[in-house]
Structures are given as structure tokens and as C-alpha cells.
């Protein structure tokens, strides 16, 4: 049923992506904006402060917000041009229904009629196959209020266990690793600790392109005399001038961490007093890394032994340090082990919980942090509570006004949901803020699975590539059309402010969800009048949890330029307090809700955990048939699946189409020159793109950015292997091969760069 029209051109013609270049209002320089709205960028997890210029209910540009402390006016090109997503010709202004009688495959319909149809189809499927036959996909670019509401909607209104979110592609390895080691999942330090460290260790993070503002913090550390170590298969822009570059083979990070810890122990570069007082499990880890001598580490990682020794010496002997990592070590079938390996290095050094001594994972999406705390994950309830824990269930069931046994148990990760769709167990799907046919690995499988659904409703502001498979598309809201909070890279909760009203029939997403609940005749718990009311319920629901938001208010956020959770509303004795929040975790003597004074970490004994992190090779290693490693990632001018950024002209101009990065040694061997059409193949799919021949990548590795759909999509090739704990897919390594293409692909000259 849910199969898009085979001829793409009419649908591209009607729904885009087309490019918005500039607004006429913007170019009329005499046109003063009606007002400036202080808010934040709609894209990455840094959540830079920005002021939007508004005229006649249209965002017409921006003005730097110099006073916001995190970015002090700085923005990347995406933030500069984000305003062009508004007043866009592709914007969905009505609901649409599948209509095979028109070439574009969809025709407009009334909003209320669409809601009625959605409710009747969901009702029919649940009556026929059971409540669990309907699944929900949501996203980490949603505000905390919406993320909370989606979790509640699935469990209370739909009574289905099957909800998961696109943070599954993003933050879950870091989250699981942090919970295992620290008992809490959040960057441990404010970014202001970075310039105070004398050693910066960056593993698997293309900071300059994926978290550009963080660059300034790193450069400031360098000006203050810090050394910078970068571990990456590519010499990224930030790596170009680092003090030590470790060109790791994709998928071998854990071996490096174990090898460095081996040398730290051998040379006595560990903080025995800290290990003794604040951690458990060191001896087992020490025993495990005993075999990871430099020669073995060098052989596995592909990093010369002398560089490993140098890195270990600098890390081992530093007096202060900041270690950060991102998807480069997390997007693996052993992503959690990679994270644990890096944390072992930090714990052994004793350098955490103090000024200038830090650790943090770099969040990807706007609400990559807050979106993983309040119940849109398949196994989670608000406040980082556990849906399998009877106490947590009882607490949330009471707030939701339902009987605890009526609350579904844990569901499955989003990829497993597609396997269930493929097997016919899930028949109906609701998606919001998720574009899986571009973003999930082995995406030809995803497209096939969507075709097996009896009913699929997509909520979005543009017709994203997955929505083309929908039966009904509901017109949702842009970030600037709603208010709410998100939690940024430092664990700081900040406030998104509404700048303009939704155009046409478009509605704020939370209203759409509540309208569906009402049409299902299950409105109880879904009658919020504004985001503030949702936030108030969430504050109560999170109270007493690890991610405690109970002391946070919109007003406190504005007053303090953000509030870092946990932020308590009561002191340990139960007396109401005005808590400023917790910018730095694990400070000696600090109190938390789990340890209750026993120590700074979030376990009953207050101690951090060392975890043995065994090395395993990638799920699919190279062989003679597929001798290259394919790794994927981002470019600075595009964001995630490109639903927004592939519609913004100046950003598309900056890097129009994906290219295959390869080393000249490899290119020469294959008879390929820069700019040639090259076909990259894996066991799952292929794509033909132009070559970008550069010495800044390992000769045994190729790189393709993943923001494009269809035949330009890198995820045709990637593997759906997942980490057994976090269920994150292995985007960062699979086996591939390349050959010079016979000629340009079919789409060359027919599709615009942003289309596919």
C-alpha cells in the first residue's frame, strides 16, 4: 500500500526539494523588522543563541545574539541561512492523502477530515490486530515537551509498546556507556572547562563540520598552551593543525583506548588515590588491557606505535584534560564498548569532576540530550526512568492517571520496528521528525518494509522522502512556530521561543497529536492548552529521577541563560529550594539522588564503574571481494537527512552533491581521477558519485556524506548491524569496493543536486 509513485519527477515538481534563495523582504533593506525574537538554532546540539528578524509573520533574517554565553553571536552557515526554511515554496499548507489518480501521487484534503481518517485507520488496525500493531517513530529534534508527549501518547493513548526515536541513530551508545560508567548520561562538564585544560583528546568527532562552535573552545585551549590529539580516519579541518594525529582504522577505537590504558598502567601514569576512593572495577580492566601492548595496538588500529606511545605519554602525564567523542566511535556494532574504553582512560587519569578536567560526548541533534531523557525511547519513562522497573512504572502511571498494569512494557529499537513491519507484526505507523528512508542503514530494506504497512501517517512541514510512502501527510510545525525547551550539548536546558504562527492548515505538532487522541475518543491526558502545561507535567514526572527537571522553569532559563539538569525543586530533606542547576557533574562532595551523599557518581555507593571493554572487529570486515572500509558522516553545510537544509539554496550551493572521498594511492590503482564518476558497492547496494581524490583520508578507507536520498544515498551501502546494548547501527564501517563507472548515473542531468 505505502509505495510512492515510480516516476519521481511529478512528486519532485510538486513537493520539492526546491531551493529557497532569499526573501524579497530581506533584500528590501529599508524594510525594518517588526521585532527580533531571541531563540536558538533549529539544527545541531550546540543550540547556538540567535535572534530571528520577523516581519509580517515571516522570519526574514537573523541578528547575532552576542549576549548568549555559549556562542556569543557565533553561528555556522546552517544557522546563518536557517531562516530560509520559512515561507518556503515546498511548505505543506494542507493535509494530503494518497491519490493514485494524479501524477504527483497526493491530493490535498481538509485537516479535520484527515485527522478523522487517521483515527479511523488506527482504530481499525488496533481493533483487528491488537494495540501493538501500531508503532510510533519520533525524533530528537523535537522539544522536550513534544518528546515527552510522544512517549505518553504511545503508552497511554495508543497503548502500544512500539515507540522509538531517531536518537537511536545518534546518541544511544554514548547514553548507554555513560549510564554504565557514571550512572548518569550527560556531558560531565560545561564547555567553559575546555579552554582550561592542558590536553584535549578528540576521538571520532569532526568538530569543525559537525559542531563548529566547539572549535573556538578548542582553539582557545590551544592559545592557552594546550596540546590537541585527534583520532580519526580523516584529517578533518580541526585535525589539520593538531599536535598529534592518530589515523585510526575505522572500527578500531577500543583497541587504541585499551592500548593507551596499558601504557598508563605500565608507566605509572594513573591516579591511584582517585581510583581507590572513587571507582570500582579497576583491577579487572587492568588485567584485560595487560595484553594490549603497543605492538598489538599498532597492528590492530593501523596507528604507528610511536604515535600511540606519544599519545599515552601526553594523556598520562597531563595535569588537566578534556576528552570528547562523537558518532565516530559511537556508530559501531561495539559502540558502547568504544565509549566505555574512552571513559576507562578518563577514570584512570582521575581527571574528571573538576575545573579544567572534563569529559563529554558531543550531541548531534538539537535536543539530542533532552530527547533521550523523557520517554520516547522504547525502554524508557520520563526522568531517565526505566519502563521495566516496577517503582518507576508506578510513579509515572500515577502521574498519567492510568493503572500500572495498563502501561505497556518495553518496545524495540526503531530498526527492529522496521523488521516487525517487514514481518507483518506492525501494520500501522505514525512518524514525526524522522526520515528513515534516508537516515537508516541498508535503506532499500526500509523502503520495502514501508510498502507492507496497511496505514502510514507522516507528520512533517515538508514532504520528506519517507512521507512520500504515506497514506496521509499532516502539516506540522517548524521550530520557530512553537515554543518549548531543549537540552543542549552541556546538559543545559534552554528555551525555544515562538517567532511566527503556522501558515495555512499547518499546526503545532503537539496539537496534531492531541487532535488524533481526541478523534480516537481517547482524549484523557491529551488536553494541554500550551507547551508550558506539558512542561509542568514533565517537571513533576521527572522529579526524583536522575534527569530531574523539577526545579527548572521557563523564567529561570531566561534569567540564567539556561539551567543544567539535574535541577532539584527540593533539598535532600524535602524542603523547597531555588536550585541553580548542576553545570559540572561529579564534583567531590556533591550530592545526587542515587548516591544520596555516598559519593559524586550516580550509583548507590557513589563510585564510578570501570568496565572491561573487549575489542571486536567490525560486523563486516574487509575481504578480497570488498577490500575497502566505507565510513560515512556529515558536511558542514548540510544537516542529517537534509529535509530542511536541502531546501536552502545557499547551503546546497556550498556542497551540492555527495562525493566519494578517496586517497590518491587508491584512486591511481583503480585508474580514477578527481571528478570521475565512480561506483561504490557493498553487499547491500551501490551508488555512483563523483570522486574527490585527497590525501587527507586513509588509503584503505572511503568516505561518503549521508545527507542525500535515493540513488545518491550512502545508506544504500551501509550495514544494519547494531550494537547489542544500545542498538545503534554501524554507520561508520562496512566492507565496500569501488570501480570507475561506465558513465554518469541515470539521474545526472535530470535531477537537481538536492533531489533524489
Amino acid at each position: 500500500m505505502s509505495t510512492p509513485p515510480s516516476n519521481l519527477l511529478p512528486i519532485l515538481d510538486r513537493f520539492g526539494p526546491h531551493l529557497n534563495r532569499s526573501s524579497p523582504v530581506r533584500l528590501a533593506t529599508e524594510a525594518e523588522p517588526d521585532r527580533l525574537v531571541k531563540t536558538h538554532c533549529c539544527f545541531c546540539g550546540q543550540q547556538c543563541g540567535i535572534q530571528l528578524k520577523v516581519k509580517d509573520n515571516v522570519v526574514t533574517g537573523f541578528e547575532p545574539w552576542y549576549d548568549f554565553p555559549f556562542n556569543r553571536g557565533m553561528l555556522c552557515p546552517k544557522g546563518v541561512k536557517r531562516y530560509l526554511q520559512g515561507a518556503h515554496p515546498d511548505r505543506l499548507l494542507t493535509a494530503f492523502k494518497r491519490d493514485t489518480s494524479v501524477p504527483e501521487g497526493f491530493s490535498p484534503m481538509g485537516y479535520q477530515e484527515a485527522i478523522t481518517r487517521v483515527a479511523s485507520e488506527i482504530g481499525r488496525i488496533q481493533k483487528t490486530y491488537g494495540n501493538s500493531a501500531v508503532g510510533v517513530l519520533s525524533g530528537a529534534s523535537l522539544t522536550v515537551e513534544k518528546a515527552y508527549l510522544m512517549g505518553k501518547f504511545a503508552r497511554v493513548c495508543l497503548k502500544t509498546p512500539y515507540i522509538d526515536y531517531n536518537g537511536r541513530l545518534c546518541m544511544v551508545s554514548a547514553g548507554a556507556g555513560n549510564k554504565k560508567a557514571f550512572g548518569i548520561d550527560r556531558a560531565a562538564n560545561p564547555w567553559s572547562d575546555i579552554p582550561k585544560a592542558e590536553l584535549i583528546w578528540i576521538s571520532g568527532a569532526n568538530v569543525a563540520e559537525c559542531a563548529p562552535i566547539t572549535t573556538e573552545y578548542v582553539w582557545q585551549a590551544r592559545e592557552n598552551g594546550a596540546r590537541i590529539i585527534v583520532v580519526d580516519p580523516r584529517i578533518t579541518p580541526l585535525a589539520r593543525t593538531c599536535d598529534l594525529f592518530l589515523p585510526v582504522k575505522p572500527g578500531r577505537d577500543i583497541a587504541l583506548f585499551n592500548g593507551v590504558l596499558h601504557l598508563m598502567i605500565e608507566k605509572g601514569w594513573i591516579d591511584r588515590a582517585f581510583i581507590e576512593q572513587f571507582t570500582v572495577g579497576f583491577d579487572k580492566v587492568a588485567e584485560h588491557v595487560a595484553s594490549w601492548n603497543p605492538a598489538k595496538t599498532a597492528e590492530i588500529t593501523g596507528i604507528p606505535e610511536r604515535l600511540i606511545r606519544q599519545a599515552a605519554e601526553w594523556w598520562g602525564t597531563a595535569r588537566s584534560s578534556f576528552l570528547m567523542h562523537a558518532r565516530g566511535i559511537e556508530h559501531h556494532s561495539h559502540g558502547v564498548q568504544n565509549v566505555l574504553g574512552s571513559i576507562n582512560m578518563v577514570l584512570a587519569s582521575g581527571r574528571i569532576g573538576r575545573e579544567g578536567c572534563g569529559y563529554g560526548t558531543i550531541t548531534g541533534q538539537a535536543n539530542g540530550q533532552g530527547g533521550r531523557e523523557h520517554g520516547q525511547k522504547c525502554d524508557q519513562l520520563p526522568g531517565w526512568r526505566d519502563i521495566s522497573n516496577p517503582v518507576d512504572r508506578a510513579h509515572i502511571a500515577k502521574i498519567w492517571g492510568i493503572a500500572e498494569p495498563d502501561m505497556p512494557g518495553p518496545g524495540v529499537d526503531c530498526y527492529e520496528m522496521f523488521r516487525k513491519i517487514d514481518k507483518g507484526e506492525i501494520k500501522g505507523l505514525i512518524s514525526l521528525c524522522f526520515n528513515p528512508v534516508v537516515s537508516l542503514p541498508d535503506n532499500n530494506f526500509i523502503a520495502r518494509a514501508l510498502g507492507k504497512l496497511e496505514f502510514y501517517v507522516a507528520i512533517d512541514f515538508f514532504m520528506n522522502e519517507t512521507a512520500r510512502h504515506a497514506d496521509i501527510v499532516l502539516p506540522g510545525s517548524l521550530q520557530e512556530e512553537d515554543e518549548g525547551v531543549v537540552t543542549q550539548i552541556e546538559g543545559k536546558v534552554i528555551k525555544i521561543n515562538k517567532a511566527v504562527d503556522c501558515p495555512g492548515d499547518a499546526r503545532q505538532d503537539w496539537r496534531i497529536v492531541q487532535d488524533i487522541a481526541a478523534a480516537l475518543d481517547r482524549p484523557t491526558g491529551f488536553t494541554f492548552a500550551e507547551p508550558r502545561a506539558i512542561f509542568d507535567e514533565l517537571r513533576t514526572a521527572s522529579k526524583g529521577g536522575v534527569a530531574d527537571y523539577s526545579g527548572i522553569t521557563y523564567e529561570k532559563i531566561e534569567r540564567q541563560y539556561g539551567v543544567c539538569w539535574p535541577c532539584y525543586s527540593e533539598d535532600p530533606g524535602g524542603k523547597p529550594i531555588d536550585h541553580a542547576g548542576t553545570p559540572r557533574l561529579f564534583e567531590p562532595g556533591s550530592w545526587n539522588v542515587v548516591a544520596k551523599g555516598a559519593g559524586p557518581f550516580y550509583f548507590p555507593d557513589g563510585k564510578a564503574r570501570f568496565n572491561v571493554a573487549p575489542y571486536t572487529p567490525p560486523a563486516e570486515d574487509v575481504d578480497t571481494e570488498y577490500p575497502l572500509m566505507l565510513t560515512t558522516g556529515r558536511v558542514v553545510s548540510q544537516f542529517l537527512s537534509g529535509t530542511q537544509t536541502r531546501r536552502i539554496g545557499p547551503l546546497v550551493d556550498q556542497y551540492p552533491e555527495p562525493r566519494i572521498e578517496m586517497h590518491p594511492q587508491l584512486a591511481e590503482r583503480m585508474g580514477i581521477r578527481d571528478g570521475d564518476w565512480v561506483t561504490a558497492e557493498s553487499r547491500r547496494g551501490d551508488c555512483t558519485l563523483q570522486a574527490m581524490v585527497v590525501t587527507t583520508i586513509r588509503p584503505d578507507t572511503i568516505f561518503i556524506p549521508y545527507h542525500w536520498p535515493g540513488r545518491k544515498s550512502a545508506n544504500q551501502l551501509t550495514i544494519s548491524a547494531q550494537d547489542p546494548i544500545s542498538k545503534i547501527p554501524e554507520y561508520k564501517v562496512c566492507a565496500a569496493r569501488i570501480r570507475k563507472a561506465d558513465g554518469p548515473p541515470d539521474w545526472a542531468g535530470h535531477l537537481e543536486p538536492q533531489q533524489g
Partner: protein
Amino acid sequence: MSVPGHLNFYIDPARCIGCQACVQACTECDTHKGISMIHMETVDRAHSTQTIPVVCMHCDSPTCAEVCPADAIKRTPDGVVQSARKPRCIACNNCVLACPFGVPKMKVEFELMMKCDMCYDRSSVGLKPMCASVCPSQALFFGTREEIEAARPQSAPIDRFQFGNQTITTKVKMMGPRSVAGARPEHLDVTAALDPNPPGRSISLGVLNGSH
């Protein structure tokens, strides 16, 4: 209105990450009519991710103005070399060819040379230019000498450049390593640095090629 004397523009190419936030933001300045007046140079992408943001250096004796037959390019007393004046500019391209830094751009559609004016509408009221406001790496910095000295102890400013026989002094300052720039060299010899294969460019290649 003029740019306050205590505010300076500094470029530190070592910090540049090639994101082009500066180029994109330049088009958003209220007086630039959606056109970027600056650009970013990719030095040699085949071998390096090095990039350099190119804004006007605002020379004390601007070559662009000196070669202009129509007297269309003015340097205001605060040292800012303004974009060409529309009524005077004859679109002859002299300035484009003569500028040693490659800054002026001929906009054929307007028959007008347009160049970086340090976002005069902003900087003349003490606001940062758009590029230096947004630059995520602060490779472009606008502020006081005291601020940059305090924030960047490893670097020092240079404002004299040698191109062949021509020595140019600029309002905009280029940051270099303190070990070099801090020794107060008479000038930076740009011509001598034009060696197509300077040593050290491919600094990390040995590592990637497997030669330990």
C-alpha cells in the same frame, strides 16, 4: 559615524575551518543586498583541508583606489576602504586586477565593483561585522587590541606585507605565531611564500601512507 579607533579587525588563518559561515553571513549584512563581498580560499584541497577567509585588508594606501581612473573608491578617515560608488564606477576592472590580495569583485550584472566594506553600517556604530560576528573558529575577530592580546598569547599581529617591490600597510591585521610575528618583523614577504610546494604542507601524509 566612523569605526571607533580602538576596534580592530584580525585574521588568523590557522584557525580557519573552511565552514564559510563568513561568506554566508556577509550576504546578510543589511547593505550588501544579498551579495557576499568576501570569499574563502581553499589552498590545495588535494593535499590539505587548509582554507583562508579573504576579507578586505583595508590598506593605508589602497592600490584599488590608486589605480581607479574614475576615483570611485574612497578611504574614509577611519581607515575603511569603501565599496565603489555606483555613480562613478565605470566597471573597468582595474581594481580587480591590481589588488594584491584579490579582494574586489566585479559584479557584471550591476556594472559595479563591490568589495568588503567591513560592514560599515555595523562597524561604524561599534557593532562587529557579520563575518567576524558569526565565525565559529574566530579566525575572523573584531575587537580591541587588549582583548586579542589577552585571549591569544601564542599569536601576534602583523600589518605590513611585501609584494615584490611594494610594501603595504593595512588596517586589518594578520595573526601569526608569536615566535615569528612577535619578533616584530619588518613585513611578511608574500612573494617569497608563493613557492608552489612549500615544505611542511603535507605534514601528516607520511603517517597515512604508512611510513612510520
